[in-house]
């Protein structure tokens, strides 16, 4: 047996759909094996932002305090978009390459394993 029809028919209003963010989309960014930043971060960006803005402005603002950040070889970064391997085009916009509202973009920096190799 399950709950009554009243309960099963209940519908909620999603609170975080894209139209609530004044033209921005939310993007989540996580840098693997750098847990000095305790959690992935959340930034609002217009969907027509070129990908290069991420590497030139957004990621440095978020992560430049880490000593590994300056050592990143951007040609060797491995990207995961919503769990799938991903090759970004720096000139195209986020929306043009499938980076949508509440997408998760992870970067892996082979050879850089955090403070003293501790994944911090």
């Amino acid at each position, binding site marked *: *047996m*399950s*709950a*009554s029809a*009243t*309960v099963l028919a*209940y*519908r*909620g*209003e*999603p*609170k*975080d*759909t894209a139209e*609530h*963010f*004044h033209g*921005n989309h*939310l993007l*989540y960014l*996580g840098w*693997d*094996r750098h*847990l*000095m*930043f*305790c*959690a*992935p*971060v*959340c*930034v*609002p960006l217009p969907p027509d932002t070129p990908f290069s803005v991420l590497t030139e402005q957004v990621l440095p*603002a*978020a992560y430049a*305090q880490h*000593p590994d950040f300056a050592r990143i070889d951007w040609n060797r970064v491995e990207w995961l978009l*919503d*769990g799938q391997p991903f090759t970004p085009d720096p000139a195209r916009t986020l929306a043009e390459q499938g980076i*949508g*509202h*509440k*997408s*998760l973009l*992870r970067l892996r920096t082979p050879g850089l394993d*955090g*403070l*003293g190799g*501790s*994944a*911090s």
Partner: protein
Amino acid sequence: MSTPTSAPKKLGLREKYARMTRDLAWEPSYQPKDKIYPQAGLEGIKIEDWDRWEDPFRLTMDAYWKYQAEKERKLYAIIDAFAQNNAQLNVTDARYVNALKLFLTGVTPLEYAAHRGFAMVGRAFPGAGAQVACQMQSIDELRHVQTQIHTISHYNKYFSGFEEWRHMHDRVWYLSVPKSFFDDAMSAGPFEFITAISFSFEYVLTNLLFMPFMSGAAYNGDMATVTFGFSAQSDEARHMTLGLEVIKFMLEQHPDNLPIVQRWIDKWFWRGYRLLTLVAMMMDYMLPKRVMSWQEAWEMYFEQNGGALFADLARYGIRMPRHWEVSVKEKDRLSHEAWATFYNYGHAAAFHTWMPDESEMAWLAEKYPASFDARYRPRYEHWIAEERAGRRFYNPTLPMLCQVCQIPMVFTEPDDPTTTCYRESHYHGEHYHFCSDGCKDIFDAEPEKYVQSWLPVHQIYQGHCGGGSVPEVLRWYRLEAGRDNLDYLSSPDRQNWQRWKGEAAAG
């Protein structure tokens, strides 16, 4: 002369309980019961006979008032003496008071929510035994709020971070974790509410909050907190018994109730366990003198005592809550991941954070031999060096939150403590992100509820929190920048403490 032999005999406990509880109820005559108790059938729980409800404590209202009045007399005598004697100066160190700030801003509003919640479910249940037990608990919870506000009132005269506790509860990002936990329970039906709060939270989990932590308060010289804590906890034993009785009653009443109850136990174990993340950090990092580690407490109170409880419930077909194994895998990392989180976002918290000193790091390494030196010490040593170089680390970007527990996504893979645990669901074309399989399961079972989560970071970006910059948000929180937040080292609390204790200011 003969002595009268018919003097009224004193009622035995069972008989008195029956007369003073069940016999006060009546059968309605001009309204059907399902109209009087419309919520009782909404969740699919089938109750054949409310008279089978057994209240093991058999506490009647007259005895209740007598014992509660005695508890109150004792408690207020101690709180009064504490205030009169300036006993706040006897705590081990002003850093300790930050654990109290977190406890009192996080838990006190929940006591009030519990007062409301038990009044609601006491009205919703059709059985007299359950009604009386819920009514007593509702009154208990109101008493707990009051005793805690008295303690807030005293500490607020000397330390920062207390004064806007009520305003902050509805706004501050980390207080959204306890608030949403209780709102989740209150917006469920009466049987789920009581399973969530009385059984999963009070019976299975609150021992970890009240026992090692209150014992820790005693160890750190905080008599006021020990007093309200243990006075509240003495009611808690009755509440826990109510929680166990509710579970047994539902399972004995109808076999169809088992899958519903098991799902609630799974859900509310995980919700409660995630909430206790804050307690793990309080025990391992915020008590200058420590009683036991989080890992030891989890072994004692959950693995051993919780294990006995679930072995006992196996006769009803109940098994251990889903994902309990994950809680065991996380026991040597939970407190460190939590403390690092508040160190990251200490500029947006209404209490102070700091790095453990060398003796504290040695304690942590001894208690967590498999994890501390390898994973957390390097991070702390880096932060200490940065702080000494004038670059105290704060995370400049708002964190990604879990859709269900609302905690930043700080937890790591159950089998790999060096990798963030990411889980995701798609629902009606939207992405939803979770910190764990436990939180994902909860969302997937009731997505229409959790698509409505009030996630503090998203609310800031929607423009609902006073503005887009950290100073604007702090003003909206009524958190005074430079006084209530930032590192303990630079805090007015520390300066005052050194002045009061006649300690030389270091550096």
